[in-house]
């Protein structure tokens, strides 16, 4: 004979309270998932330029291992030295700086500005509209263009000079900035740079890891394969945000703990008389404890089940509203949040369990107050 699902029935006997409890747990988990998702989304966006690059190896100044918020300067003569190395199919330089792209209405968009050799690696992987930059021309992201109020053929200012917009890329706007492309020679002229490049992108004939090792050893430069370079980029963001994430997660789980504690406390208190009946009928403490724990399980399970689609919907809404803030929901993040919630459920159930242990079976014979 199957046992009566007392825990679930007890929890759902007052549906509004069950709703508030589940909604509260879902909100607390949403807080954790949203925070996690914002950082995951930011990281995906920030490494997009690296992840979509045709380069197998990224070469930078010694000690520089990423692009975001970094400055790298390599003598231009090193490009030829890299090209001559065995295992190198091609090597192309880029110049790189962070600057504002300013539209005609003085609207500003912070951007990585990249100077590259048109037709070679280092430029936009795909131009959605228009063409590669000619002399005095720039390619910007379509979303950035709409923010700046600029159309193809329009004028923008960056690197202290005016540029004609020759093309649009897509998908290169992130939470911090966007990416824009000009010709290498134009970048040099605008900034008065001679004989220096920022990074060298390299196509490998063989194993990129081996090639990166050779370049690092022989040329006293920092060379990393694309996956390693991307991982370093991610670490800049994750190392910067770890402490903040920890503070927010503790706060979110504390809120969750209070909600679970309140829900279980209220559900148990309202059924103390029935619990007394069960005790009088010979129910053991283990069975009664399972009832409380099953209530905790239902509350948490339903909370997680609501929180996940809610986070996905929130991510959709945030992206539509902002255009550059993405919220990436990952399986790892859901598992971590659910695991945390299970621990909270265990802690939140302690007080009701004590309450049940103290219930006198004689309660059932007393008149209800």
């Amino acid at each position, binding site marked *: 004979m199957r046992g009566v699902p007392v825990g679930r029935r007890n929890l759902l006997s*007052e549906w*509004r*309270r069950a709703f*508030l*409890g589940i*909604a*509260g747990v879902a*909100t607390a988990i*949403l*807080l954790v998932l*949203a*925070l996690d998702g*914002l950082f995951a989304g930011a990281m995906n966006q920030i490494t997009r330029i690296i992840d979509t690059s045709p380069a197998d190896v990224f070469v930078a*100044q*010694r*000690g*520089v*291992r*990423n692009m*975001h*918020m*970094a*400055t790298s*300067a390599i003598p231009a003569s090193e490009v030829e030295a890299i090209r001559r190395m065995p295992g190198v199919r091609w090597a192309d330089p880029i110049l790189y*700086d*962070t*600057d*504002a792209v*300013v539209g005609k209405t003085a609207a*500003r968009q*912070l951007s990585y*500005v990249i100077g590259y050799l048109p037709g070679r690696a280092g430029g936009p992987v795909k131009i959605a509209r228009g063409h590669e930059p000619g002399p005095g021309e720039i390619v910007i992201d379509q979303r950035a263009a709409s923010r700046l109020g600029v159309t193809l053929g329009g004028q923008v200012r960056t690197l*202290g000079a005016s540029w004609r917009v020759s093309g649009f890329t897509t998908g290169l706007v992130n939470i*911090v900035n966007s990416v824009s492309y000009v010709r290498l020679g134009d970048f040099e002229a605008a*900034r*008065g*740079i*001679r004989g*220096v490049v920022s990074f060298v992108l390299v196509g490998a004939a063989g194993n990129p890891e081996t090639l990166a090792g050779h370049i690092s050893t022989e040329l006293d430069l*920092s060379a990393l394969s694309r996956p390693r370079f991307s991982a*370093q980029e991610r*670490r*800049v963001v994750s*190392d*910067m945000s770890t*402490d*903040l994430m920890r*503070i927010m997660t503790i*706060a979110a789980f*504390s*809120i969750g703990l*209070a*909600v679970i*504690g*309140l829900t279980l*406390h*209220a559900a148990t*208190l309202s059924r103390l008389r029935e619990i007394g009946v069960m005790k009088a009928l010979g129910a053991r403490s283990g069975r009664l404890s399972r009832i409380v724990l099953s209530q905790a399980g239902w509350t948490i399970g339903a909370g997680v089940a609501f929180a996940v689609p809610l986070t996905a919907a929130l991510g959709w809404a*945030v992206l539509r509203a*902002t255009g550059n803030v993405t919220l990436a929901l990952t399986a790892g993040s859901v598992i971590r949040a659910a695991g945390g919630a299970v621990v909270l459920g265990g802690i939140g159930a302690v007080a009701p369990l004590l309450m049940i242990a103290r219930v006198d079976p004689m309660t059932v014979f007393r008149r209800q107050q």
Partner: protein
Amino acid sequence: MRGRVPIARRNLLADRRRLATGVFGVGVSIALIFLLQGLWGGVLKQASAYEDGVGAQLWVGDRGTSNTFESSVVPLTAVDRIRAIPGVDRADPILIRSTVLTLHGRKVLASVIGSRPGAMGGAWSLPVGRAPRSNGEIVVDRGLAAQHGIGLGGRIEVAGEAFAVVGLSAGTRSWMGAYVFMTFDAARNLFHFPDAAAFVLVRTQHPSSVAGAIERQTGLSAVLRETIRRNDRTLLAGVMKGPLDLMVAIAFAAGTMIVALTIYSAVVERAREYGIVKALGTSGTRLLRIVLGQTSALAALGVAAGYVIFRGAAALVVRLRPQFLVSLAGSRILWVVAAAGLMAVLAAILPARRIAQLDPATVYRG
């Protein structure tokens, strides 16, 4: 009979344990909102720490420059031209480049400031050691140095070059990273910067008129300190304010749920008593006031508890992670109190509906 029965208060206090849990839950939600606001206030202060501390009234950058996050290149020949303008007390070039340090396997964002020895632009508070005099020397933030066991005479690698630590600065760190200071030439060599500065800092008694003169005579942009500080903060807000507001909104929703859950549970347990009150002819408005009284009281207790939790959490955060600055303005506190008021009103909806649907005949049932 004089006076009314304080039903709201009695109902709220009927179960002290539930009240305590509710106050804790609302308190944590409110504390999170306080903490987010405080951290944001700290971020804004830290974002303009250099502008606030360096002592320049004007920042001269290339045309169109409006903040310190963007690239600016000013020919060094402009420095003497600026110095010659009447009203300019002092004009010094600086170089600002961002880089990523790897300290004990952890990435730390650093703003490298290059300035000429004895000139404006270096660390404004140097409690330990001295400013860099030669190209191989560096000043690092005191907190960063302590965290990574770097002392005077120690060495630190920046963009592949090793520098000797000659001074430790104060007030030069944020949760995102830290400032490090070296000589102008060292920074130029390190980053292969052309024969130019990023900015020229100007000290003057007449910022507005001198700014106009500089722009007319050099074709560069001369930006008031207040403007560049505001622009830096605006730029940072554009990046971070959206996610921050999202977190505040979720914390607000969580707090509202907890108030509603606590009061709703209290109402359900006293359903019979509310039935009696209804049977005695109490108006719907009075019943709504009873519920609102409870949600408001709980929200108020939550704000008080939240502030206490916030103060404790803020002290702990700053102690454990000195790079965080928590700065909560009075107006933000009022804002949170107003949000708690809204929380109380929203949280009253479900309990009020529950009472409204109560049948007074409940009282006659067994």
